[in-house]
């Protein structure tokens, strides 16, 4: 009887250890599969710009830049929206707040492929017909002195900006849900004291809630960042999949994840190894971001007085 007891215990431990083994397995396997490219190019692979399957030359820079730019755009759009939406949800009347909160949670449940399709058939034409002409021809952003050349004047609806917008819609509910929890964690006493000395709601939010939950907010940002970084399908549909260095915000580009999805099935030899190397880069990036996210979120839960 006691033998089976300890058997069950070790079985549980072995199952739990599986997750650690898997995580190590990811790193080991991607490193082994990409060894050929590291031997050929060394770390120069990361800084090289050309991706030329015909001559068998590969570089990671366009994909890395594409990933970073789309992620940045999505955060710039999603963060203020998520922050103010969470502020509203925390203070809204119970029924309204609950219903709207559920609606935003459902937004998080929609599969990314649906966002991709919506982006391809609805958002991209919209960008091409209305938004981008407005930016380029009406506001004349591309003739601004310094930044103009990064915004660009040629548009076709696909590109970094469209991908960034789709991503921002996707990560908004994730960030919003965490921020809502963080805001709710502020002790009511603190908020009430602020109201008591005559602070407005905004001042309370900015000086009390924001400061109290700053680590949780950072955690939320990193969770959103991690989502945006690794998103494949939604980006694949709208980014244009052009393997060159993007010249400006409106030009077609590629991200690491969409390069993988687009090229992997046909690739072999050195190109396949290059794709594995890109995968390793993505894995390392999101690993680092997840660690930061866990660090900040863990710090908030410690403050909450939970036992872990």
């Amino acid at each position, binding site marked *: 009887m006691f033998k*089976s*007891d300890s058997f069950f*215990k070790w079985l*549980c431990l072995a*199952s*739990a250890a*599986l*997750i*650690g083994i*898997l*995580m190590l397995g*990811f790193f080991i*396997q*991607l490193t082994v*599969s990409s060894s050929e490219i590291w031997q050929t190019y060394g770390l120069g692979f990361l800084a090289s710009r050309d991706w030329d399957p015909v001559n068998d030359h590969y570089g990671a820079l366009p994909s890395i830049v594409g990933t970073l730019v789309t992620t940045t755009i999505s955060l710039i759009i999603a963060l203020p*929206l998520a*922050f*103010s*939406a969470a502020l*509203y*949800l925390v203070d809204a009347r119970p029924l309204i707040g609950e219903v*709207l909160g559920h609606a*935003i949670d*459902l*937004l998080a*449940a*929609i*599969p*990314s*492929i*649906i966002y991709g*399709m*919506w982006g391809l*058939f609805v958002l991209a034409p919209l960008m091409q017909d209305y938004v981008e002409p407005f930016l380029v021809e009406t506001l004349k952003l591309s003739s601004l002195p310094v930044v103009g050349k990064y915004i660009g004047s040629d548009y076709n609806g696909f590109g970094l900006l469209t991908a960034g917008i789709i991503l921002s819609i996707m990560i*908004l509910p994730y960030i*919003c849900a965490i921020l809502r929890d963080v805001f709710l964690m502020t002790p009511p006493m603190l908020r009430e004291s602020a109201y008591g000395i005559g602070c*407005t*709601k*905004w*001042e309370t939010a900015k000086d009390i809630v924001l400061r109290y939950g700053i680590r949780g907010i950072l955690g939320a940002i990193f969770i959103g960042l*991690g*989502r945006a*970084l*690794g998103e*494949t*399908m939604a980006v*694949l*549909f709208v980014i244009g999949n052009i393997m060159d260095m993007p010249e400006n915000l409106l030009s077609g580009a590629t991200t690491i*994840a969409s390069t*993988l*999805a687009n090229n*992997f*099935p046909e690739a072999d030899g050195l190109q396949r190894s290059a794709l*594995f190397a890109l*995968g390793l880069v*993505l*894995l390392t990036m*999101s*690993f680092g971001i*997840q660690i930061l996210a866990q660090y900040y979120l863990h710090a908030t839960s410690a403050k909450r007085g939970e036992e872990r």
Partner: protein
Amino acid sequence: MKKKTIFFRKSADRLVRIASGLAVAVAVAVMFWIIFTVFRHGSAALKPSFFINPSKPYGIPDGGIANALIGTVFITFGAAVLATPPALLGGICLSEYKEFRRFNATLRFAANVMMGMPSVIVGLFVYTSVVVPTGNFSGLAGSIALAIIMFPVIMRTTEDMLGMVPYALRESALALGLTRTRTTVQIVCRSARKGLLTGILLALSRVSGETAPLLFTALFADRWPWGYFNQPTANLPVLITEYSTNSPFAEMHRAGWGAALVVTVLVLAINVATRIIFREKKHGH
């Protein structure tokens, strides 16, 4: 610090309130916009034959999605069957066996990190460790990929749900002379069974629209998914990708929207069901 007038403070407050109301409105409006688009385009494709016939290449009339629908069910349920037992046991380990405290902290961290891993990487991993050794794309490989994504989700929810079970219950069971295994399985897990179900359903709804890993593992085929174990298996997400990006024909786009509608309804239904089950549990206590 310069003193701000009450007018300035009040108008800043009002401005922020308007902005935050707008932000919620934007988020909810976008959700309805997306769902509305899917319903409008998707409903045009819905005919009985759409659910009965298998998918066919362009030009052959009466193509449907029946094979992809069954394939998706096979692949996701296969994933649930593969992931659930070890994930539940893993969750039990994290929550019940405090003697592994240090080790558990590391594993909990690993699970949290794995939850945020890009799914496309899982696809690469399974491609090299399953598809290459066995020599063919298969629905099973797709299931394994989805199982890897589900695993940490179920494990962490299981831990949280078991953590909510009061300690007195465990102590009473042990005091009656039950072994630890029986206490854990028959008392603790049993009283948290709705929570455990929630975790599994949540993970299911998360993976049932997952596409990127299936592109490298299950692939697609215009035939019935009976070759689940050793042949490329049809599934809805890859069908949507193929029909909407690799095909210029309106007919294929329509079928793609139809499939998108089916996936959306499926995912939202599982999601809403999960919420209802969990809410009942909360009220029940």
